[in-house]
């Protein structure tokens, strides 16, 4: 796992993809920080975090698209799958690399906190709560992105499909769900709504069940990815 993790981290920066991801992330979050926090004159960072959700939908597919699709295309998966390691180590190595980059990006909010501190006071509870929510949301989305990447050899296809999948999760909000007439279906869909769960945090509610939801999504999709790799061997 360590070897794959280190290789992927290196590859993010030699290919430039890591820089692109960080630059775009910083630029947009900076913009949201300016419009939602500084300009509005409210020192609570929650509105900024709420706006950042849509950014993930575009940026996380970029991070995950080539992780497994390119291995398959260049046949480098032959090296990985014939090495004396198990499939979980391969998937987790890649997952943790993408997640690390995501955390590096996310930590920019502490820079914003410093700026806020200079201008006024920081609502630390809200900031830390939102930061945690974003961390786990990212964890879930990255797992979804890697799963999609394992299904194809084409990184653009992987990016577009992960984008669409995440967009669907984004569109699942209260205004849409309210139109579902069947109660049971609505309840299930509400429980699966990433957006509703994430927005809970931005409203100041720290929901442990949502954290668990994101964590289990991450685990489930990593598990699916392992199964896809396993299935490819058996087909």
């Amino acid at each position: 796992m360590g070897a794959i993790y280190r290789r992927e981290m290196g590859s993010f920066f030699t290919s430039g993809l890591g820089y692109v991801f960080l630059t775009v992330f910083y630029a947009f979050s900076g913009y949201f920080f300016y419009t939602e926090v500084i300009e509005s004159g409210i020192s609570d960072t929650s509105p900024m975090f709420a706006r950042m959700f849509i950014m993930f939908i575009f940026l996380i597919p970029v991070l995950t698209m080539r992780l497994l699709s390119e291995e398959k295309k260049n046949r480098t998966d032959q090296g990985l799958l014939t090495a004396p390691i198990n499939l979980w180590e391969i998937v987790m190595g890649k997952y943790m690399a993408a997640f690390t980059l995501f955390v590096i990006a996310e930590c920019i909010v502490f820079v914003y906190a410093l700026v806020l501190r200079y201008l006024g006071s920081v609502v630390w509870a809200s900031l830390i709560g939102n930061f945690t929510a974003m961390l786990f949301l990212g964890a879930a989305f990255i797992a979804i992105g890697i799963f999609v990447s394992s299904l194809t050899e084409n990184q653009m296809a992987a990016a577009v499909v992960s984008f669409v999948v995440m967009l669907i999760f984004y569109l699942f909000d209260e205004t849409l769900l309210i139109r579902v007439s069947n109660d049971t279906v609505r309840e299930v869909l509400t429980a699966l709504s990433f957006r509703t769960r994430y927005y809970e945090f931005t409203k100041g509610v720290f929901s442990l069940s949502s954290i668990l939801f994101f964590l289990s999504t991450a685990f489930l999709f990593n598990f699916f990815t392992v199964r896809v790799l396993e299935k490819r061997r058996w087909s």
Partner: protein
Amino acid sequence: MIEVKNLTKKYGDKLAVNDISFKVEKGEILGFLGPNGAGKSTTMNMLTGYISSTSGHILINGKDILEQPKEAKANIGYLPEIPPLYLDMTVDAYLNFMFDLKKCKLPRRAHLDDVCGLCKITDVRKRVIKNLSKGYKQRVGLAQALINNPPVLILDEPTVGLDPNQIIEIRSLIKKLGKKHTVILSSHILPEIQAVCDRIIIINKGTVAADGTADEIAKNITNEHKMTMRIEGGTHTASDKEKIVSALRSISGVKYVRADMEREKGIYDYDIETDGKTDVRREINKVCRDNGWNIMMLQLSDLTLEDIFLKITMGENFDMNSEKKESKPRPRINLVSESDSGANDDGDKNESEKKADKKTDKSDSAGGDK
């Protein structure tokens, strides 16, 4: 070291590998030979655990590749058809990555220096793999397989893309490696297999068509105990033939004699088959001398590995152990049609022999008639 039992792989309905079994002993260099699409790469991919088998077992050093994949894979170094190289890495970074991936416990610097020295890539270690020539990429692929000194090396067409000098180098390297490692190597280049391998398995259409050393295969397939002789009788007429045939038949060790066509005026050819144990040439010589006949020619039907390969893979329904092979037409050098002599050589053959002859004539005249 490697044991393969009844290995089968199906892709949907297509049978890619059909019931292959073989064993490779420690320190052996085994060559897989076969035309494109014969199932060589599929077999190798199964041996290394990249794909699973539909049925059958593979034991590497006693460990089943599907049941104990980690332990089994730790024994293998694999160079696939397309080397698994990350093009954006430098050779050094890549080899270090493979070193970690294989969880190698050897001293890193010294081991990587060794491997690079063996594969002659020391001078490109700082370069990005993307910019290397195909030959260098192939050698980096080989270096990667050698990391951690695996007891088993599986090399899928290792000399593809190399120039003649490099091919010779790689061959001698493989031979050298064969002293310490068990090597399985695939190729469709015959001289390569002949030059490097102790043992050859010819794979065709997913099955093992032949297994043995080059000599053994040649012997089994071509029936080296078959020969063609041209003997000049006393009278230069067809009546010589019967005398000669019966005289030859009386020699112990001769299984079958057949008079062939008239090659030179009044002189006939004879196909002789022995039991494969006795060398009857001296005895034949003696009989001829006693009868005053002259031996004009003696030719053992000896095929090169190339002939065998073509014979096996060109769609002939070949079966090494079947009796049918005795009625198979042997390759000939003559350009004259055989059918015109068919009336002469009836003699005292039984029905099946006659049938066999007819078959021979038919296929010969269909194939090579002028």
